[in-house]
C-alpha cells in the first residue's frame, strides 16, 4: 500500500491519463471542421466558412443536432458530415470510457481519500486525539471523546471498520483513514506533528504495531502524551525503555483493580465510579471474599491474577493442562470445564473462581459448572470478545474482565484528568473509614451514574475573571465559588476533590472555607452542567461579581457610566 507518495498529484495523474483522449478529440474536431470548410456547397451558397463549420460540428458532435444551418447542404457536404458524426462518436466514447475507467481506479480512489483525510486533519483547529486502531476499544474511546466534546482522528487498517465509523453517527466529524498506523508517514498525515494534536492513543490488537506507533510518537512528537496498549510484558518493557508515558496492559490493570477490590472495597468502588465511561451507571458488586480461590487457565491473565492473589496471601488452586511452573500452588490437571477437575480443586470449599482462559466458551462453561456445584461462589470471568456480550450478561458474574473496557477506562482517566492519578494515590494511602465516608458523600450527592470529572486551572487563560480578582488581593473561598451564577443561594452540583498548588503542595477534599490561590489546579467531580456554570463564573467578570457580592454588575459602557455616576452621587450625599 503506497498511496501516500502519490497523493500530491491527483490532478496531474488525471490530466496525464486524459492526454490521449483529449488529443484524439481535438484532432477529430479539427479534421471535421477543416473538411466541412473544404466541401463545396450548393450552387450560389459556396463553401461554409470556418465560423459556420465550427458551429455546425460543435452541435453535431455533441449530438444536439439543429439541422443544416445556415443553408441546405450539398451532397458532398452531407457525405462528409456522415463521416464526421461517426468520427465524433468514436472520440466521445473513447474519452468518456477513459474518464470512467479513471474514476473506478482503486489507486485513484485511495489517493483521493488520503488527500481528503489529510485536508480534514489539517483543517482541524481544535485539540484532537489521534486514535490508532478502531476496534472495540477504539469505538469506546471515540464515543467517550465525542461525548466529552473532544475531536478524534482515526487510523485503522481494516477498510470495513473505517466504513463502520461513518455509520456510527458521532456529533462531530471523525476523519478516518484505512492505512497501517505503524507507518510513520501515515501518522504524520493523521496529524501527529500538528500543533493541535493533544495525544496519541495506540490501541491496535497487534503489539508490534503499537510499539511502532509508540516509537514514532516518541521521536516525531516527543511532547505529546502517548497511551499505548501492550499485552505482553516484553512489549511493555520495550515501550518503557524509550520513555512511553502511559503503557496500558489490560491484564495487569485488571489484577490491580482486583487487588484493590480485595484490599479496600470502598477504594475500588470510588475508582470505578470516578473512571466510569460517560453515560454509564456503575453497578454494585459484592466485594471479593478472602479464602480459597480457584483459577482456571494459567495464561497471561491467569499469571497476573495468580501473583495478585498470592500477594494477598490467599490459597489458590490452579486448573490447567500444563503445570504452572515452580510456584507453590496446588495444581489440578484438566481444563476446568468438567466437574471432575473442579471437584478435585475443592470447589465446594472455595470462595471464588477465576475463569481466565482465552476461550469465552470455556470460561462460561467453567463458571456455569462451578456455580452449579457451589452457588455462593464469587465468579470472575474473562470476556475475550465483545460479541459474546449477551452470554456474559445472562450469566451475571460478579466481575466481568473485558480488556477493551479496561483500556478505555484507563485511557479516559489519563486523558481527561491528569490530576486523577495523584488523587487516587492519595485515596489509597488513607484509611478505609475515610474512603467509606468519601464514597458515601460523593455517591449520596451525585448518585451512581458516571460523574463528570474535570480539572480547572486558576490562571489568566482559563479563569481570567477570578485570576484578576485574586491578583488584586481579594480573597475567594471555595464555598463562594461553587455556587450557581444564576442563583447565588444554590450550590453547583460538584465537589472539589483535590487541589494542586504551585509549590508542590496539595489538598485532598478541601473544606468550603479554603481560599483559592492563583495558579491552583482543581480536580472536580459532579454533574455535567456544573462544569459549564463554573467555567462561566471563572471567566466572566459579571458572573463572578454577582457570586461574590450578590449585585448584578451592569454590562456595557453606558450602563457602567450611569451606575458609576449614581454611586458617586450617593457618596457625595453621605458626608453632607
Amino acid at each position: 500500500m503506497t498511496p501516500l507518495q502519490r497523493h500530491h498529484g491527483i490532478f496531474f495523474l488525471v490530466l496525464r491519463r486524459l492526454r490521449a483522449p483529449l488529443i484524439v478529440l481535438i484532432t477529430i474536431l479539427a479534421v471535421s471542421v477543416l473538411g466541412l470548410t473544404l466541401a463545396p456547397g450548393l450552387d450560389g451558397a459556396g463553401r461554409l466558412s470556418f465560423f459556420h463549420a465550427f458551429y455546425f460540428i460543435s452541435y453535431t458532435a455533441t449530438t444536439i443536432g439543429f439541422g443544416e444551418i445556415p443553408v441546405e447542404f450539398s451532397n458532398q457536404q452531407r457525405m462528409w458530415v456522415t463521416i464526421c458524426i461517426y468520427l465524433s462518436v468514436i472520440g466521445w466514447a473513447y474519452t468518456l470510457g477513459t474518464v470512467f475507467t479513471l474514476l473506478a481506479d482503486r489507486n485513484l480512489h485511495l489517493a483521493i481519500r488520503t488527500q481528503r483525510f489529510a485536508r480534514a486533519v489539517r483543517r482541524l483547529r481544535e485539540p484532537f486525539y489521534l486514535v490508532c486502531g478502531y476496534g472495540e476499544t477504539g469505538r469506546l474511546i471515540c464515543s467517550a471523546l465525542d461525548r466529552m466534546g473532544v475531536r478524534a482522528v482515526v487510523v485503522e487498517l481494516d477498510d470495513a471498520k473505517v466504513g463502520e465509523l461513518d455509520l456510527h453517527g458521532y456529533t462531530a466529524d471523525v476523519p478516518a483513514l484505512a492505512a497501517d498506523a505503524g507507518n510513520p508517514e501515515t501518522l504524520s498525515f493523521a496529524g501527529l506533528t500538528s500543533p493541535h494534536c493533544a495525544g496519541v492513543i495506540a490501541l491496535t490488537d497487534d503489539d508490534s504495531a503499537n510499539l511502532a506507533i509508540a516509537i514514532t510518537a516518541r521521536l516525531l512528537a516527543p511532547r505529546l502524551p502517548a497511551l499505548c496498549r501492550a499485552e505482553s510484558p516484553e512489549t511493555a518493557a520495550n515501550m518503557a525503555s524509550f520513555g512511553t508515558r502511559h503503557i496500558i496492559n489490560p491484564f495487569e490493570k485488571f489484577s490491580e483493580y482486583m487487588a484493590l477490590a480485595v484490599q479496600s472495597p470502598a477504594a475500588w468502588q470510588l475508582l470505578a465510579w470516578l473512571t466510569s465511561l460517560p453515560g454509564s451507571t456503575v453497578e454494585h458488586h459484592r466485594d471479593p471474599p478472602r479464602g480459597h480461590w480457584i483459577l482456571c487457565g494459567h495464561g497471561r491473565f491467569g499469571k497476573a491474577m495468580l501473583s495478585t492473589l498470592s500477594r494477598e496471601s490467599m490459597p489458590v488452586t490452579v486448573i490447567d493442562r500444563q503445570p504452572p511452573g515452580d510456584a507453590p500452588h496446588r495444581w489440578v490437571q484438566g481444563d476446568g470445564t468438567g466437574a471432575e477437575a473442579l471437584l478435585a480443586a475443592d470447589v465446594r470449599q472455595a470462595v471464588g473462581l477465576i475463569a481466565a482462559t482465552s476461550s469465552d466458551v470455556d470460561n462460561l462453561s467453567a463458571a456455569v459448572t462451578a456455580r452449579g456445584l457451589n452457588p455462593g461462589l464469587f465468579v470472575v470471568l474473562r470476556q475475550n470478545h465483545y460479541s459474546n456480550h449477551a452470554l456474559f450478561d445472562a450469566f451475571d458474574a460478579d466481575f466481568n474482565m473485558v480488556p477493551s473496557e479496561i483500556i478505555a477506562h484507563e485511557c479516559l482517566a489519563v486523558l481527561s484528568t491528569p490530576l486523577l492519578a495523584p488523587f487516587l494515590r492519595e485515596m489509597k494511602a488513607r484509611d478505609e473509614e475515610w474512603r467509606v465516608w468519601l464514597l458515601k458523600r460523593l455517591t449520596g450527592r451525585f448518585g451512581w451514574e458516571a460523574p463528570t470529572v474535570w480539572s480547572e486551572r486558576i490562571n489568566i487563560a482559563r479563569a481570567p475573571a477570578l485570576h484578576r480578582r485574586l491578583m488584586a488581593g481579594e480573597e475567594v473561598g471555595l464555598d463562594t465559588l461553587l455556587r450557581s451564577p444564576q442563583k447565588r443561594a444554590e450550590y453547583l452540583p460538584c465537589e472539589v476533590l483535590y487541589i494542586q498548588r504551585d509549590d508542590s503542595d496539595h489538598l485532598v477534599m478541601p473544606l468550603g472555607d479554603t481560599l483559592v490561590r492563583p495558579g491552583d489546579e482543581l480536580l472536580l467531580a459532579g454533574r455535567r452542567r456544573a462544569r459549564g456554570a463554573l467555567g462561566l463564573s471563572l471567566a466572566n467578570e459579571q458572573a463572578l461579581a454577582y457570586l461574590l457580592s450578590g449585585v448584578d454588575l451592569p454590562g456595557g459602557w453606558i450602563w457602567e457610566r450611569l451606575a458609576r455616576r449614581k454611586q458617586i452621587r450617593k457618596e457625595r450625599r453621605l458626608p453632607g
Partner: protein
Amino acid sequence: MNLEKVIFGFFIVLAATLNFGFFTGDIDNPAHHDVYELFAAIVVSLIATVLKFGDRTQIGAVHLSTSLVADLQLIAAAMVWGYAAHVSPAGLTPEMVARVVSLSGGALLANGVSVVILIAETIMQRR
C-alpha cells in the same frame, strides 16, 4: 532517441512555425494572412498544450503556462476574425485584420518562449 520527445518537440516547433507563417506579412492586408493557417495554428497549439499535461517538474509547469497563453491569444484572434467576417456589418476591414494579426503576434511570442525552453531543456541534459 525517444519517440515521445520527438512528438513533443515536433508539435511545439510546428505550433511556432504555423503561428509565424500566419503572422508575417503586412499587418492589415487580408491577402497576407490565410485563415486556414490560423486554424492550423490553433489546432496544433491545442495539441501541444495537451501534450504538456501531467508533467510535474518546474520546466513542465512553465511549458504548460506558455502554451496556455498561446492558446488564449490564438482563440481570441479567431473570435475577432469570426466577429469581423460574420457579425460586423463592415466585414473584414484592414483594421480588423490588424487586430487579428496582432493577437497572433502575442501568441507567437509565447510560442517562441516555448521553443526557447525546449532548447534550454535539451542543452541542459547534455546527451
